[in-house]
């Protein structure tokens, strides 16, 4: 893969006129032609519109204009981001063929920055899953070993970058759906601070947890992508108004004097190969001058339970809109209520139905206090615990996923087994804090391991600073 261009290199070349956006795009389209049938990263490849856009970018450069900070970068978008006039399916039969009447804010930002959308990527239906096996259109395969899953739910976006189909891609992370597939596919994945990136035009799964973020080949590319998509958006009432810092500023600064927290009461469950790499990551940061400090996050262990009550509860409400009236499919019936039932039963897959029912149950009379009410209080405990931990540490380090990429079908028999994939990623969705997964060597079967750097709210700069150090150290791993 050494011949592959990073997004940063593409931008520099295209802006300087030494690289043609058309040529860069054709390389990526050739990679798609070569392996997409095998990998199935995309629900839709947009070759024609991408070619037209690439020609516009080259023309702009030739005319002396700057096409923007992502000039000529081929990007892939998870198929739960609204693209005007272009099908947006959420990998669900219920939205098959639906063409949104507007662009999501991130989609517009990327276009305005000069990026070229090459396609819409596959996902677990409505982003519910950790393997991309729940797509109504068939699974995505891990480009590094096609007998294994790419992770999920943004499996298509992770695979697209890993396979060289796109230089950058974007996903959404509700409980780890960017970071876990990034770890399993050996790329960088970021969940920004909640509210840092607009959710306008992101099809809602769990609105208090969802956040858009990038998949990239390098940490520098992650900084570049964040620079483009972060910022206040009046169209999203949860958007953070604070100004956006320069994310690339600290990448070369090293970690001398930074405090890196080890969570002493982290839930067990990581495989030995993963745990060993995380230890090596601590060692590498210590060798680079960081101080390793012990912290405690007692509520961490209850994260899975709190999440699998809160997320389905919000989903059961959000997905009530799929009723066969305003968009998507309809199964006709004699009266409206029967039409709702018939449409939803035919349109949703098993996992989506399971979560809608779990959420409906958790919110129903008699159970609200025992489940949803309690989960919201655990969420508060979690936020308080992390706040205390960050009094002693600048960042925290954990595994991203408990294991490397697993074979198809390995976890589909038991939903609970699949949910355990999210153990280490869920807490930051509950607290709204940012986290990044960085490839750090390989584990079992030579498959990549990701380590996760967690930071306090709006702590993206220090998170990226530490991630960059890990990336440098990973280069020297055996």
């Amino acid at each position, binding site marked *: 893969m050494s011949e592959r261009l990073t997004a940063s290199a593409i931008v520099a070349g295209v802006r300087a006129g030494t690289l043609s956006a058309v040529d860069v795009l054709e390389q990526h389209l050739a990679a798609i032609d070569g392996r997409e049938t095998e990998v199935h990263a995309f629900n839709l490849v947009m070759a024609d519109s991408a070619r037209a856009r690439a020609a516009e970018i080259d023309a702009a450069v030739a005319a002396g204009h700057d096409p923007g900070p992502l000039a000529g970068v081929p990007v892939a978008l998870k198929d739960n981001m609204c693209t005007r006039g272009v099908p947006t399916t959420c990998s669900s039969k219920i939205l098959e063929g639906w063409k949104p*009447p507007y662009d999501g804010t991130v989609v517009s930002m990327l276009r305005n920055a000069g990026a070229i959308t090459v396609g819409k990527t596959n996902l677990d239906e409505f982003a519910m899953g950790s393997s991309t096996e729940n797509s109504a259109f068939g699974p995505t395969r891990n480009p590094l070993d096609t007998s294994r899953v790419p992770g999920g739910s943004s499996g298509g976006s992770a695979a697209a970058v890993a396979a060289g189909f796109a230089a950058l891609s974007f996903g959404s992370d509700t409980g780890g759906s960017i970071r876990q597939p990034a770890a399993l596919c050996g790329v960088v994945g970021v969940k920004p601070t909640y509210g840092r990136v607009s959710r306008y035009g992101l099809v809602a799964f769990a609105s208090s947890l969802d956040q858009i973020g990038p998949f990239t080949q390098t940490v520098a590319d992650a900084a570049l992508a964040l620079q483009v998509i972060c910022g206040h958006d009046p169209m999203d009432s949860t958007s953070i108004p604070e100004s956006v810092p320069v994310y690339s500023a600290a990448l070369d600064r090293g970690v001398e004097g930074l405090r890196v927290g080890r969570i002493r009461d982290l839930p067990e469950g990581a495989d030995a190969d993963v745990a060993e790499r995380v230890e090596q990551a601590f060692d590498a940061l210590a060798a680079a001058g960081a101080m390793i400090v012990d912290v405690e996050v007692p509520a961490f262990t209850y994260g899975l339970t709190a999440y699998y009550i809160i997320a389905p509860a919000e989903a059961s409400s959000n997905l009530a809109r799929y009723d066969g009236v305003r968009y998507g499919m309809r199964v006709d*019936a004699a009266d409206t209520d029967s039409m709702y039932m018939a449409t939803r039963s035919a349109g949703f897959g098993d996992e989506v139905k399971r979560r809608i*029912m779990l959420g409906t149950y958790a919110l129903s009379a008699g159970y609200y206090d025992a489940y949803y009410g309690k989960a919201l209080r655990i969420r508060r405990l979690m936020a308080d615990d992390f706040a205390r931990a960050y009094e002693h540490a600048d960042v925290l380090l954990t595994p991203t996923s408990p294991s490397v990429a697993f074979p198809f079908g390995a976890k589909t028999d038991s939903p609970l087994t699949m949910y355990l994939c999210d153990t280490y990623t869920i807490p930051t969705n509950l607290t709204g804090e940012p986290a990044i997964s960085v490839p750090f060597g390989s584990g079992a079967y030579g498959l990549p391991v990701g380590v996760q750097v967690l930071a306090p709210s709006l702590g993206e700069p220090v998170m990226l600073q530490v991630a960059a150090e890990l990336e440098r150290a990973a280069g020297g791993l055996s």
Partner: protein
Amino acid sequence: MSERLTSDAVAKVARLARLDLTPDEIRLATEQLGDMLDHFADIDALDLSGIAPMTQPYRLVNVMREDVEMACLDRDEVLAAAPQPEAGRFRVPPTTGLEL
């Protein structure tokens, strides 16, 4: 099999969620949702009294804007995405008046 959930309760939840499940689907859902509720038992013993619920991560503020006319979605484009648009509206089956 979990004792926390009966198939009758699952059938009721499915009805509330407007999902039509077969008896086999109800049986499987009862088992799977029961397993999850068993796992959730880890929070049963927690004393959380006095802790304020946290509904979302960021401070909640009322977002206001100037009351001025702004562009909105194109009506024809929105209706074109509907399963059964008719004369500028969404057509639905009868909601009342049927012998059910």
